[in-house]
């Protein structure tokens, strides 16, 4: 750095840019896979999401979300499942008006009572609705803190009534705001799910399952396949049969994108794509960094000759160059990591399907040990790729030629 500050800074900035890009990708992946409240058990969650039914005789082909009844048939009472919640797939935007008389748009999530057990909501005040209230279709609501403030101003919200798309609801509980990044638990207003459906098979219900600790997901999938077979025998009377698409899905599959109700998600391809992205993001700057290191070393040929003359071994030359390069890489990596975190805080919408998130990813969500570990690993790989060849070449320099180099 002292002798070649321009090349040194270009190297640091190049590394920072590379790590920044990798970290953006890693963090996007992390917030979609790693557990955070209220989705604190993502590693144990499975989601039964869609149903695809065909009628081979007349070419009929329908696929959509499930009705409550279909979801129960396929997923209720599976061995190895600790708890299961039937809730709507995603949120529905609705108009809400409280005592402030201001109409606001809220994201509505309809759930059963088990929803509150499988997710880890921060109940600030009041209570959650129970099974009886869900069964009765009670007009009760649990709402988020910021929504409560918007609907009722400074008034005490629990016990208050508000209009939700022209229906009157009573607030029974207040929970902390939920990030849209928790895509399966997200909502601003939660109400009991309707157990009725417009169709016996189709609807908008998903089965969110919390699997017991240590239970293999394959064990659950086998049971679900058997349930599909049973369901097929029911449907056979109408000339229908199901098409199985690998449901239920784990968090990684969900994060990779379940493209539709009539396709089979392929988490492997997502993994492959991520690996390709990481490799490109590492290789391209590594080539640049390597050539810059080459350039730096060309100016240090004399110095290497002197070091060799005074007893420096080839191995020491290699380790010194890689260590020096590592310092530069780590410095660049730290800058890149900080830049990625700042970027994530400023542009949280990029991390979510919901556009600009009402609740940005928190520092605790982004600053995980894994993030640092990934950054460190990326730095090491970048360093080894970029420094190994120049260091090896430098170690092979003939000391006499190195000393005589101009």
């Amino acid at each position: 750095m002292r002798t070649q500050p321009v090349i040194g800074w270009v190297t640091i900035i190049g590394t920072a840019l590379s790590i920044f890009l990798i970290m953006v990708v890693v963090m996007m992946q992390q917030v979609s896979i790693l557990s955070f409240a209220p989705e604190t058990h993502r590693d144990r969650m499975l989601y039964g999401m869609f149903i695809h039914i065909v009628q081979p005789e007349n070419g009929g082909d329908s696929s959509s979300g499930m009705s409550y009844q279909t979801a129960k048939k396929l997923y209720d009472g599976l061995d190895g499942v600790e708890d299961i919640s039937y809730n709507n797939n995603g949120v529905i935007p609705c108009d809400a008006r409280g005592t402030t008389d201001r109409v606001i748009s809220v994201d509505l999530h309809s759930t059963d009572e088990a929803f509150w057990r499988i997710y880890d909501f921060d109940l600030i005040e009041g209570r959650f609705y129970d099974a009886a209230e869900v069964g009765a279709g009670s007009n009760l609501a649990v709402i988020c803190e910021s929504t409560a403030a918007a609907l009722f101003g400074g008034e005490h919200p629990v016990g208050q009534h508000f209009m939700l798309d022209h229906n009157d609801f009573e607030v029974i509980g207040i929970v902390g705001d939920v990030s849209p990044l928790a895509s399966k638990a997200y909502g601003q207003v939660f109400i009991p799910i309707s157990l009725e459906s417009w169709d016996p098979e189709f609807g908008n219900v998903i089965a969110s399952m919390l699997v017991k600790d240590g239970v293999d997901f394959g064990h659950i999938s086998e049971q679900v396949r058997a349930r599909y077979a049973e369901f097929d025998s029911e449907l056979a009377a109408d000339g229908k049969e199901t098409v199985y698409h690998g449901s239920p899905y784990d968090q990684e599959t969900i994060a990779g994108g379940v493209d539709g109700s009539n396709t089979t998600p392929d988490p492997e391809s997502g993994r492959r794509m991520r690996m390709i992205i990481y490799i490109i993001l590492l290789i391209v700057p590594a080539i640049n960094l390597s050539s810059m290191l080459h350039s730096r070393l060309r100016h240090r040929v004399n110095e290497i000759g002197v070091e060799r003359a005074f007893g420096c071994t080839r191995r020491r030359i290699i380790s010194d160059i890689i260590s020096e390069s590592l310092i530069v890489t780590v410095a660049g990596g730290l800058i890149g990591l900080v830049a990625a975190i700042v970027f994530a805080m400023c542009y949280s919408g990029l991390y979510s399907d919901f556009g600009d998130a009402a609740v940005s990813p928190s520092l605790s969500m982004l600053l995980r040990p894994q993030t640092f570990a990934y950054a460190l690993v990326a730095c090491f790989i970048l360093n080894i790729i970029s420094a190994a060849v120049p260091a090896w070449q430098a170690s092979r320099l003939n000391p006499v030629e190195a000393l005589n180099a101009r």
Partner: protein
Amino acid sequence: MALIELNGIEKVYRTKEIETTALENVNLKVEKGEFVSIMGPSGCGKSTLLNIIGLLDKPTLGTVSLIGTDCSKLGDTAMSHFRNANIGFVFQSFHLIPSLNVAANVELPLTYRSGIGAAERRKRVDEVLERLGMTHRRRHLPSQLSGGQCQRVAIARAIVGRPSIVLADEPTGNLDSSMGDEVMQLLHDLNRQDGITIVMVTHNEAQARQTDRIVRFFDGRIIS
């Protein structure tokens, strides 16, 4: 037994088109504590010989024995360790590392030696800098020193590891006469007071005459 013993040394540089013989059947013995000058016209092989003695280059033929060790059989790592422990170099163009200050330049050989802690290294550096009158410049960079001061630092670096042999390749070649005399005086002091064996390549007849023996070279051969 001679401290430095070269037997039947040949050095041939080969390219696709041409073969150049730099050294031809060179036999040389230097006793412990001797101060030997090597003289000859440019391109006659003096520096090549010095590089072979210093284990920086390998002869095409012949054996190099230093301090009773047949160095022809040493591998690269062993050769590096041997250089570090036994040989100090003084170059015409000093070859100080520009990004390191005087103390760090002098310390360099010790950093490649195992078993010497930081405190011991600092002590040895202080000792040689004081001996060479460079203590007040220990924090300076080479670019802030005069040519004579640079060569003093280079000599300090050469002796800080307490080598038996110092190889000096035209150590006064880049200095004016008074600075050259100062450097020669330092080398003589090292030779006489510390018993260091010195082999010096020089073009300066007067300086060569001050040494114990002159070895004259011509076209890769010792002529006297």
